[in-house]
């Protein structure tokens, strides 16, 4: 006999598993890391899960979701956990990665089969961003959050968010804006 959390987990993974892996890939730039991130977040969320809808969402960050389905509250929490895990992991392994720079090179990164060639430059440029810049860019341009919302989500001051976004956009502008374009 399945329990309620069991059904919720099954539904979420079945219906939104691909989207969650995609979100993790947008953050990490590596499918395998994205898959680990999703599974780690799912276990962390569901081992202590209470339905977010039960007590409303007042006072908590709201994530715009793209499925419009019934998984919104749970998926939003899983995604927030993924963000926290991603930033925590990158901080914890920062020194190790500095010692082993080859880990981050693209030839050792598992790329998705369906990368679109026309956007390859942007994809590569995104991989060159620091983890925080990348998280801010994803939250800004994919989740469509404002600076105050990103600051609340990541627990970082708005000024810091603006700096990360400005640095990130500066790094991306070469592939986003045609020669002679404004910026």
């Amino acid at each position: 006999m399945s329990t309620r959390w069991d059904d919720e987990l099954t539904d979420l993974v079945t219906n939104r598993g691909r989207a969650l892996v995609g979100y993790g890939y947008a953050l990490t730039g590596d499918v395998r890391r994205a898959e680990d991130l999703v599974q780690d977040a799912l276990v962390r969320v569901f081992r202590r899960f209470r339905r977010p809808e039960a007590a409303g969402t007042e006072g908590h960050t709201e994530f715009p979701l793209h499925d419009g389905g019934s998984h919104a509250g749970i998926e939003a929490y899983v995604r927030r956990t993924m963000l926290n895990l991603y930033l925590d992991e990158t901080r914890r392994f920062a020194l190790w990665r500095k010692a082993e720079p080859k880990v981050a090179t693209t030839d050792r990164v598992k790329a998705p089969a369906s990368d679109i060639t026309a956007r390859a430059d942007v994809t590569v440029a995104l991989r060159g961003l620091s983890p925080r810049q990348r998280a801010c860019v994803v939250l800004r341009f994919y989740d469509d959050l404002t600076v105050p919302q990103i600051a609340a989500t990541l627990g970082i001051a708005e000024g810091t968010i603006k700096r990360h976004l400005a640095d990130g956009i500066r790094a991306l502008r070469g592939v986003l804006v045609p020669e002679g374009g404004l910026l």
Partner: protein
Amino acid sequence: MNDESKHEGLGFDVDLGPGRDVLRQTIGALVDGATPPGVPSVPEENLGLLRRKVRAWRLAKAGAVGLGTAVVVSALAFSAAQASTWTRSEPLPGRPTVHSIERGPVPSEVPTTRLSPSPTTSASPSPSPTPSPSSVPEVEPTPDVSASSVVVEPEPGGSASEEPEAPEVMWPPFEPFDEGYFSWAFDASPIACGLPIGDLPMDPVRFTIEPNDSPADLKVTSGFTITEVAGESYELSSGGIPEYLLFQEGRLVSSSFGARDAGSWGGDSGSGEFTADGDEIVVPGQTWQMAQTYTMTIEDVSTCGERTENRDWPTPEFHTPLPAGEYEVVYAAPYRPADGESWGIAFSGRYPVTLP
């Protein structure tokens, strides 16, 4: 939400023109294309394993409810047994003296602070806290002798045979020493290199923790016991691991490399009450189990010494070795209260540690 409010403070963003759409579409393509069409995602393939893992956690937690009281009592008893080892007999300079119940390794004497993220607030070693009189125990501050370079010398005419000679306190303890710098990414934090331990910020909400393991081992393998939550229950968001602050002669001389500014504690067992976000509601006496064994490692270089910034990573590289000697470590854990608009740091008591 209209476009104007969405772009508030994003002058660099609105000029992106068509590049915005390219970026949005690219990220969308990454999300959509991570798993090839027609192939189940890895989480789907591993659904059975995920369910077993979650079930094991939840069963363990249900079993722990009956044992919870015994665990907490054991942890507190262990803390009390260690008190004589962990506690100094005399207060350090600048440390408030608390006229309340004496308990264990003085956890309640180190308060917490709530930080409102503010890009304009700079670190200062001398904050001006405004504690609520209704929730903070009466304290009698000892003279702050640490506001400048300190050299303690024997009184004129004093006899070494009558009174022990006060040790000479050198400041700074090593060179170079970047007083006022702090390696954590809390923009509003008043904590900085050189901060007197007694100047750790005060806050009306007092929230303290005790590590369940011997701090001599610098390992946190069985989490923390929350020893005090005054005034109200508190909601914490889940996440990371505790950090540490390192004091010598009562002043901050190093810390862990950087508290993750996006998270706080990982609570895997506790009150059994949850917020709307699924975060646990904290209650006094709650034992916080870590998800994994965590070893608190004191780095052998100081975050207050020489450093090299690395633009690709939030953590600089530090170079100045910490001198051998006696230090005190204070565990610190950022937390996010229920209002979601501010951040706080919970501090443990202070524990002596010797660096070889």
